[in-house]
């Protein structure tokens, strides 16, 4: 059952990451690519590559039949979906298995269960994991909604059941506001989505985003501690770290145990992440959702635990049991990852595709750069803007931030704009240094600092180094 040849159904930096893990395991790799990715680093690194269609993701990386056919043509016996694209598509996971291949991830059933907000919430509650107080499903009457908010207390969010990505959300801070906003929200949801279904959730103001990495083999589950990803722009994480700077040991223990309990309850297989909101005043945490895949920010966990998560998920998919016991998982030091995107922070994060004329990559002690870049590479405009991730590790958080500044000063990507100046400004910010932030902290900060994000101020670390 061991995997001999792994097809990577993804692109960009994560495809490179998976090829490296497979190679270290002695597994041959097949990289699928769209016409726009013919010259990608993943294609260059893989043992074999095969074109699967035009640039549009809907006609290439999301085309299940073509990807399965590519696996057949190349003789791959397993498919790694990476993140995004088909990674959390239950139908695809089932089709891969039906074709007699291994899907490097959980069962289609787990993906389906955790992909359904209401079912995931019910599974969490059944496993004793706290969820955000609110309606378990859609509310059909204003009376039922009001009876519920009397119990949860204010403020509450009124969300459209058919909405998503922050659309159709209203906040009520009192009963009066609630009675005023509820009919408006219903009318708006009906107009925007053709569905007036609403649900109501308590708003946890000033909450942090904390997530727990787990690994399961279908029987046992361990956790690899948590990451904090509170610095977000438009619900996209920009800076992630491990461990969270805001948990006490007792809360950390309860949080990680709750993640294991939920993953065990669903017999989880592979790498997964349980996302929570954390209120650092009340020390309460609330389960949000589970991501049934490897995540962009997985390296910070690897840096502090020494566990190669991508290797472990491939081994588990190949039929091996978990090789690590819970008492062997320890956190050493502190790790921070920043996302280097092809976006211009000085121009409202305008996308910036283009050709890499010159590239200097940081290195040295405690520095890792996971990217899809090489000198001369042309970043295509068709996919997301993530070029790579700069990850640092050091003995504690203040030193990790110093190391991050040092590494950012060494990083140079010429030919397009990147988010490097943003991370340099964040690393110098007193609130970031003191970890005084929450999920709604970054956006107002960006408005106040827009002018300083164009060209980076001289780095103090660089001066010390001279």
């Amino acid at each position, binding site marked *: 059952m061991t995997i001999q040849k792994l097809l990577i159904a993804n692109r960009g930096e994560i495809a490179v990451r998976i090829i490296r893990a497979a190679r270290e395991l002695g597994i041959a790799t097949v990289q699928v690519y769209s016409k*726009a990715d013919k010259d990608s680093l993943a294609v260059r690194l893989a043992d074999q590559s095969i074109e699967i269609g*035009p*640039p*549009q993701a809907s006609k290439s990386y999301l085309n299940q039949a073509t990807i399965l056919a590519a696996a057949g043509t190349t003789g791959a016996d397993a498919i790694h979906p990476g993140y995004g694209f088909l990674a959390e598509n239950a139908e695809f996971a089932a089709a891969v298995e039906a074709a007699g291949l291994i899907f490097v991830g959980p069962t289609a059933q787990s993906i389906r269960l955790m992909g359904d907000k209401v079912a995931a919430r019910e599974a969490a509650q059944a496993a004793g994991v706290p969820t955000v107080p609110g309606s378990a499903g859609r509310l059909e009457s204003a009376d039922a909604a009001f009876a519920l908010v009397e119990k949860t207390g204010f403020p509450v969010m009124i969300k459209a059941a058919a909405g998503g990505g922050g659309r159709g959300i209203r906040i009520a801070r009192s009963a009066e506001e609630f009675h005023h906003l509820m009919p408006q929200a219903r009318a708006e949801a009906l107009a925007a989505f053709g569905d007036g279904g609403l649900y109501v959730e308590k708003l946890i103001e000033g909450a942090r985003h904390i997530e727990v990495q787990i690994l399961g083999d279908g029987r046992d589950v361990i956790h690899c501690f948590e990451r904090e990803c509170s610095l977000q722009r438009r619900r996209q994480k920009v800076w992630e770290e491990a461990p969270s700077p805001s948990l006490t040991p007792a809360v950390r223990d309860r949080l990680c145990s709750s993640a294991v309990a939920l993953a065990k309850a669903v017999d989880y297989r592979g790498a997964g992440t349980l996302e929570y909101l954390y209120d650092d005043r009340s020390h309460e945490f609330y389960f949000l959702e589970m991501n049934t895949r490897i995540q962009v920010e997985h390296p910070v966990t690897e840096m502090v635990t020494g566990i190669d998560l991508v290797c472990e998920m491939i081994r588990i998919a190949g039929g091996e049991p978990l090789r690590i016991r819970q008492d062997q998982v320890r956190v050493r030091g502190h790790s921070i990852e920043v996302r280097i995107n*092809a*976006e211009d922070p000085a121009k409202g994060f305008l*996308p910036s*595709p283009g050709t890499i004329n010159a590239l200097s990559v940081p290195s040295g002690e405690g520095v890792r750069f996971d990217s899809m870049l090489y000198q001369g590479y042309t970043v*295509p*405009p*068709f*996919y*997301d*803007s993530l070029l790579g991730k700069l990850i640092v590790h050091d003995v504690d958080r203040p030193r990790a931030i110093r190391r991050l500044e040092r590494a950012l000063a060494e990083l140079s990507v010429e030919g397009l704009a990147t988010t490097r100046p943003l991370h340099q400004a964040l690393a110098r910010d007193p609130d970031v240094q003191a970890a005084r932030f929450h999920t709604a902290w970054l956006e107002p900060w960006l408005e106040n600092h827009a002018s300083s994000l164009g060209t980076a101020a001289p780095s103090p670390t660089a001066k010390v180094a001279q």
Partner: protein
Amino acid sequence: MATQQIFSPLPGIFYRKPAPDKPDYKSDGDTITEHDTIGLIEVMKSFNEVKAGAAGKILRFLAENEEAIMAGQPIAEIDV
């Protein structure tokens, strides 16, 4: 009357309509003003409106819906 082309300001995927279930912004033969939106370009998952930039009459579109285009590529031909 002179024929003029409208060029794509950005590389990406060109869309002739605001959403898959909506009608096209403009059709061949339509009269347009400078500020009219004639299409959308998706660049790295962000959507940017393409303005006509000149008033006139659309002779024909040169880029199809959902076509991958380069910056500077002609999208439409207009009579100004």
